[in-house]
Every structure is written in structure tokens, then in C-alpha cells.
């Protein structure tokens, strides 16, 4: 009945791997960005699972873990705002968001 923490962490690892695959396979920058969101959520799932695990020993540790996820959500929101703004600026310049065509962005 009580699902072990390892099961949640395994699910998190699978989701993270799928997101990493998306980053590697997709060509459009916005689809790469969606895959990054997937990876972020996989990491959040692992944090919440570990927070529940540690709550069995220390109440403050469990709640602190959940609060860290809350902060990660805020950081993700800021990241999405800036990232989509960059995408719009790139699209305005090139009429495309193909990551293969952005070779001049690198140092």
C-alpha cells in the first residue's frame, strides 16, 4: 500500500532521461525548452519523494524539502519568461528557431 521512495525516484529518473532525449533529438528551440521543463519537473518529483522519506525521521526536513520545490517553481517561472523572450528575439531576427542554425551564438 505504501509506495516506496525508490519507485518515485525511478519514475523521476525515467522522466529525466526522456526529457534529456528530447533536448538532444528536437530541432526547434522551443521544443528543446519544453523538454527542459520536463527535466525540471522530474527533479521536483525526486525532491518531493525524498522529502516524504525524510519526514519519517524529522518533521522540519520534510517540510523544508517541499519548500525547496516551491522555490524551484519560482525559478522555473523566471526561466520560462526570460527564455521565451530570447526565443521571440531570435525568431524576430531569423524567422526560425532551429537550434542547428544558431551556430554564431556560441563563443
Amino acid at each position: 500500500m505504501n509506495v516506496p521512495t525508490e519507485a518515485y525516484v525511478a519514475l523521476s529518473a525515467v522522466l529525466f532521461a526522456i526529457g534529456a532525449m528530447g533536448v538532444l533529438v528536437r530541432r526547434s528551440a522551443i521544443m528543446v525548452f519544453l523538454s527542459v521543463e520536463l527535466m525540471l519537473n522530474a527533479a521536483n518529483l525526486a525532491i518531493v519523494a525524498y522529502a516524504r522519506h525524510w519526514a519519517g525521521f524529522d518533521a522540519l526536513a520534510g517540510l523544508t524539502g517541499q519548500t525547496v520545490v516551491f522555490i524551484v517553481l519560482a525559478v522555473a517561472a523566471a526561466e520560462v519568461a526570460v527564455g521565451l523572450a530570447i526565443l521571440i528575439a531570435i525568431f524576430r531576427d531569423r524567422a526560425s528557431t532551429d537550434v542547428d542554425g544558431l551556430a554564431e551564438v556560441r563563443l
Partner: protein
Amino acid sequence: MATFVVLAVVMVVGALGVVLLKQPIHAALSLVGTLLALAITYVTLEATFLAAVQVIVYAGAIMVLFLFVLMLLNVQDAGPRRSLPGLRWAAYAAAVVTATAIAVVAFWDGRPAPDPAVVSLHLQGGSAGGIGDALFGELLLAFHLVGVLLLTGVVGAVALVQRRAESAHGAPKGGGLGAGRDASGTKAHALGSGGRR
């Protein structure tokens, strides 16, 4: 356990949809499904406040922003990269198998799970009160830094999408009015470049 299995299947199928679906809109909606299933998973992990925030902020605000930009830019994912035909599927299979193997080997030890009664007592269902105590206690510095980060993000986003030449002359004073004007300018410009193409 049955709830977890159902949620896990929904989330993995949704995640695969994000990676595999051709249409960007379909992929984004697939991610919405994954995020909603993740919110339900948070409830099973006794994080009810996080589940609510996940639905409101992630599946709501962030994904609406994504869909808005997708429809604004009219992004089309071009065909696959030039590579061996079976290579992509081999990469998919290898990634999933590797992740599962890592998870099982690294995290599956014999220690018993914590007592559910103690966990429920300590977490209080992940209520907003407990989250607030941790947020304004142990993580107060992180809270302040996130505030600065959000302000920086808003300023950065507006600075990135505003048009340089025209708006420098008659820069509006009101923040709300300026943001609205910038958004409409962006839309017109993006549509214009789409038409040129």
C-alpha cells in the same frame, strides 16, 4: 500502489508525447497532461499545497505562456536530422533502459520505508502553514533571492522583446501601459516576419 502505477504510466506516456509528437502544440498539451498527473502524484506524496501550486503555476500559467508563444511564432519542427535510420530508436531505448537501471541499482536498497503514520503527522499533508514556516524560517535567504530573481526576469524579458529604434523615442512612463504596447509590437512584428517568409 495501483494509483502510483496508473500515474506513472500516464506521466511516461505524456513525456514520450513531448519528445515524439511532431506538432509542437500537441507536444505542449502532452506536457500539460504530464504536469497534471505529476500534481496528483504530489498529493499521494502528502504535498497538497505543492499540488495546487503545480496546477495553478505550471499547468496553468507557464504552459499557457508556452502555448501563446507557440501560436505567436507558428513554430514547425522540421524533419529529423540526417542520421542512420535506426539510431534514434536505439537512443530512445538505451536512455530508458539506462535510467531505469541506474534508478534500480542506485536507489533500491533494503531499508524499510518510513512509517506512514509518522510521515502524515510530520508533514501535516504538506499544508500551506507548514510550507510558510519553512519558507520564512530556514529558507528566508532563498526567498529573498527568488524575489530579486523574479524582478530581474521581468525586467530582462521586457528588455529582450521590446523594439529598439522606435520605442527609444517615445518610451512610455507607466509600466503596465509599456508592457502592453511592447506585447502588441512584438506580435505585429512576429506576424510580419512570418508573412515575409
